[in-house]
């Protein structure tokens, strides 16, 4: 379980998160909505442990441990992973090696890559010259190898072409131990009982909602949680009246 209590975060002198509370139960996936600059990415980066995000108040608990001041790699080894929107490219580091790094040992990189339709990229330097969609597939491939318990997704559908969007959606479902409910009505209950993986997904376009059935949604506005509810309903509201109205009515 992830518990965030009264979290306050600054970058430099700027407050980016103000008294954020959030709980993600084992097996639960939540969607994070909010306009540009509302603090969505800041929340993900703070959970991951990026040092430029200074926690000035509150705390973060994961699997019962206070991780508020843990380093990034300690959190990664505890089971937290992130799919970046714009990860850096690293010259000379082959994608194949990167996937091995994520798995921390033996992994059948080719088989995993086939599932992401990504084998032809394995001998290329990680992220060097990758398109937006290729970066997303690379990120998900790494996360499959890493086998995280809590996975944070920063706009996993941005830059992805229509052909690959369902691949991205299905892979996220797989990572979060979810099945496409429309196709697998009968197994969903069973899957739900066994499910332990947690997810927190930022979406801008809402496309991902067509593929991933999330349990909850929340709206960040100006560094604060402005509303919570059914993610599909929230997205409908946002489309209809915009973030500002939506935040106001939810508050």
């Amino acid at each position: 379980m992830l518990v965030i209590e009264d979290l306050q975060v600054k970058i430099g002198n700027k407050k980016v998160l103000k008294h954020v509370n959030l709980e993600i139960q084992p097996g639960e996936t939540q969607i994070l909505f909010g306009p540009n600059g509302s603090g969505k990415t800041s929340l993900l980066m703070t959970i991951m442990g990026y040092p430029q995000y200074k926690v000035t108040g509150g705390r973060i608990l994961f699997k019962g441990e206070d991780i508020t001041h843990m380093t990034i790699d300690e959190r990664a080894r505890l089971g937290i992973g992130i799919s970046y929107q714009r990860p850096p490219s690293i010259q000379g580091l082959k994608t194949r090696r990167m996937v091995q790094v994520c798995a921390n040992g033996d992994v059948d990189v080719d088989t995993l890559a086939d599932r992401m339709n990504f084998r032809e990229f394995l001998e290329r330097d990680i992220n060097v010259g990758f398109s937006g969609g290729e970066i997303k597939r690379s990120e998900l491939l790494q996360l499959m190898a890493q086998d995280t318990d809590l996975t944070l997704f920063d706009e996993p559908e941005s830059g992805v072409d229509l052909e690959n969007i369902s691949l991205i959606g299905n892979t996220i479902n797989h990572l979060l131990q979810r099945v496409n409910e429309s196709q697998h009505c009968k197994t969903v209950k069973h899957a739900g009982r066994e499910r332990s993986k947690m997810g927190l997904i930022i979406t801008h376009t809402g496309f991902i909602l067509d593929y991933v059935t999330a349990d909850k949604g929340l709206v960040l506005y100006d560094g604060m949680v402005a509303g919570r509810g059914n993610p599909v309903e929230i997205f409908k509201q946002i489309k209809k009246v915009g973030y500002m109205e939506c935040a106001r009515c939810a508050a």
Partner: protein
Amino acid sequence: MRSLDDMAYKAKDKKAAIGPDIDLDSYSLESATHANVKNLKTIPKEDRERMTLAGLDASEKERAGTYVQRDATAVHSGSNVDGMEIIPIKKALEEIDWIRDYYWKLASVDTDKYTARARLDLQDGYVIRALPGKKITLPAQACLYLEKEGFNQNVHNIIIAEEGSELHIISGCASASHVTRGLHVGISEFYVKKDAKLSFTMIHHWAEDVVVRPRSVGIVEKGGLFLSNYISMKPVKSVQSYPTIYLVGKGAVARSYSLLVGSPGSELDVGGRIYLQAKDTRAEIIARAITNGGNIMSRGDIIGEVPGVRGHLECHGLILNGGIMQAIPELKGLVDGVELSHEAAVGKIAQEEILYLMSRGLTEEEATATIVRGFLSVDIPGLPAPLKAEIDRAVELSQKDVM
């Protein structure tokens, strides 16, 4: 030949154009002669291990032939394949007429006191030649080994890839583990003839107080390809090397790759100059350098003399734990229609890259090592697999010194 000796004598105190000046008289020219070695495996284990670090494979399993020189003595020389010759240069000068067409024909004896020294006090060196049309795909190996403390080793190598041939050479230089101080002077003359392909990979594995002054010149004829790689990742007092390559035939190509690590107390002044003198010639000079306390000067110079030629220089340097990194790229176009470019960067490892790898579970130290390894892993096209493996191994071994 008399006049060459005279020229050399006149230049015997002439300082080099660049690099710290060395007092030649502070090194000894006398060494014990070493016995012939028939089987490389009979070389004492400790020495063999040092030679292995510079790329020597004592089993010769994936080698087309071997030359080994200990101090002043050629102790092993022989080809294992048809179509390639390996001969100690002293023997060649005594027995082979054609060697006079190559010996000191590209390099000048009066360049500086180091060329003069190699002319006046030649000990030995190798002549490796691929015969016309012969494709030797396994690398030939050479090892120049310094065993006597304070010794001045002077070698002269001649490498010839005859018309239509293919030749790969791994030339390792190393010193015995008890040696702290020494001077290595090496003259190399490269002849890449019409449609021939030559790759030459030099791996240095010296000691902290060893001074190295290679002097290399190459010529590439029509349709020829010359790949020249230099790897120096171990502590050494001073290396100053500035090989020159002339592309004289239509479509000739030269590519030079350097991988350098500068340890505390090391001074590396390394670069290369390529003249594009014929139509459609191409040149590339690429360097990756890391300093963790050493002083690295990475040079490069490409001169375009005819229209339609292309050249690119690239130097990327990282400063990890102090030290100085300088990149000096030079380009000169003498006519309309040349395309020359350069790209140089000196910096540090991006924090963003370290954090990215840490979020995949690596510690900060592991992440840094992974990035450094990637930085030094340049894809060098055209090398046979055993040579690639040797370069990867050198990069792997450098990790300890870098971190």
